[in-house]
C-alpha cells in the first residue's frame, strides 16, 4: 500500500474491508465474508495427508529416541485421584510427597501386600505441604497419610506443581471431559505427546549462544513413566542409557552449585523453621480428626545425598520435624532393609526393579511398626 497520501491516513478508504469502525452511529449491516478463490476441494485433502506425514515423522523420531506412549501427569490426572477421597474412599491411605514417593512407591506392590491400592497424590518437585493443607481442611479425609520428605523440596516449601488442589476444586466440566478424552484417545497412542517433547521445550534446550551474565541452566528432562492411576516409575532410559543418565545427573549437578538466587543461611534457616511449623499445624489438624500420619524419608545417593546433608542436616530438618509434629517417621538410614545398595541412576530416584523391592520393604516396616493391617482405629471409621 502506498504511504504517501494523507487521505489514506485519515479516510476510511484506507482499510481493505469496512467494519463497524468505519460506520459510526448507524445500524451495522450483516457482515460479508468473501471466500478466497482456491481449489479448496483439493487443498484440504492434500493438507490432511501432509499433516499426517509430518506427524508420523515426528512420532517416529521420538519413538526412535526411546519414548513410549504414557499417561500425562497433569493436574486433571491428580484431580481424578483426589476426588476418590470425596467419593467414598475417605478412609483410604494417601501418599503425598515429591518425586521420590511418586516414583519410588509402586502401587501394585503396595496393593499386593496391603490388599488396597493407596491414593497417589505425590507430585514431582513439590512440597507435600501444599496438598497436606488441602487434606487437613477436608473433613471427608479420615484415613492414613504418608508424607514423603525430600529435604531440598520439603524444607524450602518449593512447589513446582503446586496448583493441583486449587485446580481440583475449580475444575470445569469441560476440563474433566477433556481429561477423559485425552486419557482414552490420545495419550495411550502417541509417544510424542509428552511435555518434554513439546515444540517450545525442544527448541529452548538447543545449544543457543549464552547471554552474558546469565548462565543457562538445563531444565529437568523426562524422568518417569505414569499410568492412569498415577502409578509411576523411573523411565527405563534413565537407567539403561548412559548418556541420558549423565544428562540427568548433570541437571541435578547444577542445583548443587552456589547461585546468586540461593537464600542466605539465615533466610534458609527461617524457611526450614517456617515449613516445620506449617507441617506441625497440618499434622495437628489431621490427627485431631483421627488421621494417622507417617513421615518417610526415601533414599538418595551420591552427590545428591551430599548436597542434602550439607544444606539440610538431619538434626535441623528431619529430627526437628518429627519433634515438632510429634508424628512418627521412617528415615531410610535407620532401617537396613531400606538402606541397601539401591540402584539410583541419577542419585535421586530408584530404578523400577529396585523401587518394587523398596516398596515391599517399606510397606513391611509400616505394617509392622506403624499401621497394622487390622487396625481397630481404621475399622471403627
Amino acid at each position, binding site marked *: 500500500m502506498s504511504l504517501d497520501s494523507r487521505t489514506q491516513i485519515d479516510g476510511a478508504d484506507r482499510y481493505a474491508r469496512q467494519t*463497524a469502525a468505519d460506520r459510526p452511529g448507524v445500524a451495522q449491516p450483516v457482515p460479508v465474508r468473501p471466500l478466497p478463490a482456491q481449489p479448496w476441494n483439493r487443498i484440504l485433502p492434500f493438507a490432511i495427508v501432509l499433516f499426517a506425514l*509430518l506427524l508420523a515423522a515426528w512420532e517416529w523420531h521420538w519413538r526412535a529416541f526411546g519414548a513410549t506412549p504414557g499417561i500425562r501427569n497433569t493436574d486433571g490426572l491428580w484431580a481424578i485421584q483426589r476426588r476418590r477421597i470425596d467419593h467414598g474412599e475417605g478412609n483410604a491411605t494417601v501418599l503425598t510427597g515429591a518425586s521420590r514417593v511418586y516414583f519410588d512407591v509402586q502401587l501394585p506392590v503396595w496393593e499386593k501386600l496391603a490388599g488396597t491400592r493407596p491414593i497417589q497424590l505425590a507430585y514431582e518437585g513439590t512440597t507435600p505441604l501444599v496438598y497436606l493443607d488441602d487434606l487437613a481442611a477436608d473433613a471427608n479425609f479420615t484415613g492414613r497419610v504418608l508424607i514423603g520428605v525430600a529435604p531440598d523440596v520439603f524444607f524450602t516449601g518449593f512447589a513446582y506443581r503446586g496448583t493441583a488442589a486449587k485446580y481440583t476444586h475449580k475444575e470445569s466440566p*469441560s476440563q474433566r471431559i477433556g481429561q477423559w478424552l485425552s486419557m482414552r484417545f490420545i495419550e495411550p497412542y502417541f509417544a510424542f505427546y509428552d511435555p518434554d517433547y513439546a515444540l517450545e521445550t525442544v527448541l529452548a534446550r538447543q545449544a543457543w549462544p549464552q547471554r552474558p551474565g546469565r548462565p543457562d541452566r538445563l531444565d529437568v528432562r523426562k524422568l518417569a513413566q505414569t499410568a492412569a492411576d498415577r502409578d509411576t516409575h523411573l523411565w527405563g532410559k534413565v537407567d539403561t542409557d548412559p548418556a541420558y543418565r549423565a544428562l540427568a545427573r548433570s541437571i541435578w549437578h547444577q542445583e548443587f552449585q552456589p547461585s546468586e538466587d540461593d537464600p542466605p543461611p539465615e533466610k534458609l534457616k527461617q524457611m526450614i523453621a517456617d515449613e516445620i511449623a506449617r507441617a506441625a499445624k497440618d499434622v495437628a489438624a489431621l490427627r485431631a480428626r483421627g488421621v494417622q500420619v507417617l513421615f518417610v524419608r526415601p533414599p538418595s545417593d551420591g552427590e545428591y545425598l551430599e548436597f542434602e546433608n550439607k544444606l539440610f542436616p538431619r538434626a535441623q530438618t528431619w529430627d526437628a520435624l518429627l519433634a515438632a509434629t510429634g508424628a512418627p517417621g521412617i528415615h531410610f538410614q535407620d532401617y537396613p532393609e531400606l538402606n541397601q545398595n539401591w540402584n539410583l541412576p541419577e542419585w535421586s530416584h530408584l530404578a523400577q526393579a529396585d523401587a518394587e523391592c523398596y516398596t515391599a520393604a517399606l510397606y513391611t516396616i509400616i505394617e509392622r511398626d506403624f499401621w497394622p493391617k487390622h487396625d481397630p482405629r481404621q475399622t471403627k471409621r
Partner: protein
Amino acid sequence: MVFNSLTFVVFFACVLVLHNLPLSWTTKKINLLIASYLFYSAWNPPFVILLWVSTVVDWYAAQGLVKARRESARHAWMLLSVVANLGLLGYFKYGQFLVDNFGALMGTLGIAWQPAHYDIVLPVGISFYTFATMSYTLDVYLRRAQPANNLLDYALFVTFFPHLVAGPIMRPTELVPQFEQPRKASADQLRFGLALMTLGLFNKIVIADSFLSRVAERVYDGDKIPGMLDAWAATLAFSGQIFCDFAGYSTTAIGAALCLGFAMPDNFRFPYAAIGFSDFWRRWHITLSSWLRDYLYIPLGGNRHGERRTYAALMATMLLGGLWHGASWTFVVWGGLHGLYLAVERLVRTRFAAYRPGPAMLVALGLLTFALVNITWVFFRARTFDKAWSVLRGMLGTNTASRPILPMFGLLTVAVIVGGMVLTHWYMRGRTLESVVARAHPAAVCAVWALLAFAIVIAQGSGAAFIYFQF
C-alpha cells in the same frame, strides 16, 4: 469450554453434524441454542442463569420499547435494560473492587473499616454478552433496529457460541437477520472456515501460549528487577501474546461461524501497523471500540459540542473502556493513557492540518505508535503498580540493580516472532487475509495449512484460557 481443547473438538464435530442433518430450520436453531448453552455451562453450569436473565430482560425491554407510546416510558424501558445489565456486571465484576476501594477511602479519612471479602466468581464472558444484549435494546431505543421476530432468534443472537464469551461483540442487526433464513455452509465455506480456525488456534496455542507467554511471565510474574533489554523484550512479548491470543480467538470464532454458514465481522485489522491512535482503535478490538463509540462516546456528546466536551467525552470513554477490561486501577491507567494519546493526536492533527508526512515519516510514526502502545501494555499486564513502575523504569534504562533475566532463546523468540509480526502487519495493513490467500499458489496454501496444524499438535498446548475470558 475453550476453543483450544479436545472437548471443543468433539463438541464442534457434533454441532456440525447436527447442523447438516435434514432437519427444519427451527429445529437447527434450537440445536444451536442448546449447543450454545452447553458450551457456556461447560465452565460453570449455574452461570447459565445469568445468561438467561440478561437475555429475558432485554427481550422484554425491547418489546416494551416498541409498545411504549410516551417518551418517558421508552426511557424507562431503556434504563431497565442498562441498569439490569450493568447491575449484573457491577456485582460480579466490580463488587469486590468497589468494596475494597471504599475501604481504602475510609482508611485515608481515618475511619477504620475492614472491607469484607466476598469471593465472587467472575462469570466467563459476562462483559461480552451484557454488551451484546445492551446493544440490542439500545439499537431499538435509538430506532436503528427492529426487535427480533421471535425469542428464539433473539436468544440465539445473545448465545451463539462462537461469539458468546470473547466476541466479536455482535450487534443485533449483524446477526439476527442471519437467523431468519435457513443457512448452511457451502463445502468451500466449510473448508475455508476450518482453515481460519487452524490459523486462529495456531496464533493462540503456538505463538501466544507456547512461545510468548513464558517470556512475559518471567519478567512480569517474577521478583527480579528487569534491565532495559529484559523489560522491553517482556513487554514486546506481551504485546505479541495478547494480539495472538485475542485475534486468534476472533479468527477461530469467525471460522467456526463460517463452518455453520454464518458471517461474523472482523475484530482486528493488523493493528501493529497503525499510524496514530485513532487508526490503532480502528484496527484493534474493533467491535468493542465501535461499541464504546456508538453507545458511550456519541451519547456523551462526541465531537458535537466543542473541543473541551470532545476531549472530556474521549477521556471518559477510554477510562471506562479501560475499566471494562478489569476491576483494577492498572486497567484504568491503561485506558487513560490511550485517552491521552488520542487527545494529543487530535490536538496535533488540528495544529498541523496541512502537514503531509512522507513515506519515511509514516513508518516512523507507525513505529512511534507501536512503541507507545507497548508502554500502555505495561499497565495492562502488570498485576500491581509497583511491578508496572519497575518494568517502566527498566524500559527507560534506570533500573541500576538489574540482572539479566531472560535467556538468549527468550530474546531471540521475541525478536523473531514480534519482529515478524510487525512486518507482517505492515505488509497486510491495506490488505485482507482473503485477498492474500486468493493470490497464493494452492500448493503454498496447502503446505502452510498442514504446517500450522502440525505446529498446533506438537506445541502440545495446555488448554490455557484466552486472556480476554477474564474481562
